[in-house]
């Protein structure tokens, strides 16, 4: 059984349909990229899974439980850790408080303490500044902080919305290098919304392409980027 399966969910904001019977599956230990142009419904898909928006129809199952319509805190407590678009750092809290916030739902206090040391080992910059307010960090540092924060929740799956948004290319490389390292060393399951299909193919994993609220294409990221189908699906010509 898949760790996460989303079946035929639809989401509407007023008159606007953001998702139209979208379906994806994420297996334990894999990396799934969700790509597509602006307004394709990528972020809405993550928000629907996280419980921030309610789908008007469809079925979502995570870790063996139906979660559609459940409040975000209940979904987080099943091990779904979300890094939303724009990072959403708690600027008024210290860096360590940001990291500790997601640990409230964990019972394994010893492992939590070890995880904190591990996060600091991966991001030494965070440890140096752990008592400073998180608002002072640069965009790239904030991205590292929210990835660390998601890890501290002891998740079964981390969902990241546009990790490269607003970052310099060099910093994006760093972020992805860290994600790959974490994925390979800890066997993390990753669900990443990424506008750049090239970035997805460099990182490796499976990829779905969304367009107008629907899943238009699905396959191995590298093969899709090499082929012609992606370009066609992305820009939509040759379909009408």
């Amino acid at each position, binding site marked *: 059984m898949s760790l996460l399966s989303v079946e035929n969910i639809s989401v509407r904001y007023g008159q606007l349909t953001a998702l139209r019977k979208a379906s994806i599956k994420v297996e334990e230990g894999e990396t799934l990229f969700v790509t597509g142009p602006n307004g394709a419904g990528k972020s809405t898909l993550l928000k629907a899974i*996280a*419980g*921030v928006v309610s789908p008007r129809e469809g079925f979502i199952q995570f870790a063996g439980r139906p979660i559609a319509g459940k*409040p*975000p*805190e209940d979904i*987080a*407590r099943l091990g779904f*850790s*979300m890094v*939303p678009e724009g990072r*959403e750092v*708690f*600027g*008024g*809290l210290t860096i360590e*408080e940001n990291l*500790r*916030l*997601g640990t*409230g*739902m964990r019972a394994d206090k010893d492992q939590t303490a070890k995880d904190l040391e591990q996060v600091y080992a991966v991001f030494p910059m965070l440890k140096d500044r752990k008592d400073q307010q998180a*608002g002072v960090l640069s965009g790239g540092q904030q991205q590292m902080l929210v990835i660390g*924060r998601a890890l501290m*929740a002891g998740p079964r799956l981390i969902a990241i919305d546009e990790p490269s948004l607003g970052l310099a290319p060099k910093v994006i490389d760093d972020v992805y290098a860290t994600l790959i390292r974490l994925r390979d060393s800890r066997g993390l399951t990753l669900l990443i919304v990424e506008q750049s299909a090239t970035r997805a193919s460099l990182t490796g994993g499976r990829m779905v392409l969304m367009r107008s609220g629907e899943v238009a294409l699905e396959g191995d990221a590298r093969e899709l980027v090499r082929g012609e189908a992606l370009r066609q699906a992305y820009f939509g010509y040759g379909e009408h």
Partner: protein
Amino acid sequence: MTALLQVLFDALSLGSLYALGALGIALIFGVMRLVNFAHGDYIAFCVFAMLWPSIDAAAIVFAGNLPTVILVPFILAVGAGLSVLSEIVVFRRFRNANPATMMIASFALGFVIKYFLLMLYSSRPKSIDLWSSLTRQIEIAGARIPPLQAITIGVTIVILVTLTVFLKRTRFGLEMRAAAENFTMARMLGVRANRVIMLAFAVSGMLAAAVGLILVTQTGTVDINMGANLMLVAFVATVIGGLGSLPGAVLAGYLIGAATVIMQVVLPPDARPFRDAFVYGAVIVMLIWRPNGLFASKAAKQRV
């Protein structure tokens, strides 16, 4: 020197009341963007909880006769209970409503509480003798200071320190601060919305109870409108402080207290009856200068 000491004590004790009131409002606003206008009626309710229901002119003191060590926790519990109850019965249903709707709901709740008290106790103010020895003035360096003023200031400091430690050092405090900044993100990290909001209401209710106890000791009267004036000043203080900022609310509470007392001293006698006009005039100038308040909260800044 003497006059200065007197002014200082007057300003600090009045400011303390305003600060506690403002804090009660800012706490709730922080976690759910609700300006709770029923807060003033919580204050009155807590005070009336000391009396046996009757429409007689004379107050029949009931719980008020309990020894202080029991009475104070009892009244605090009444405040917390009423506040949490109003969250569960009323405000929870407006969780995703827009702030104006929530504010109107709080007005309505305030009227319900007020008329509930009116029904049980009548609208006549009643006098009650609670710790009246504290209002007898003692002389310190020539200034006449009732012990209650010193106690008010002392109690406020204790409450502020306790609340700061609670917010900074405990898990609940961390979750409340996070929720005040970005509730959705906090929930995505497993922070339970209902628990945090109920806790904020409980603390806010206890602050209302503390204000009620101080007020009734000061004035010696119980009146269903006793919280209304203070609520208005406290609301103004939260706006000046920057809605959602707790230190801002406290500081602005003290500022308004100080402004009121200082105006009383420096205004020419003919202008003194219009003191409040000068105080609120200063408030208007202040808001023109800084529309977001002295300390615009992080959440408010992000939205701009």
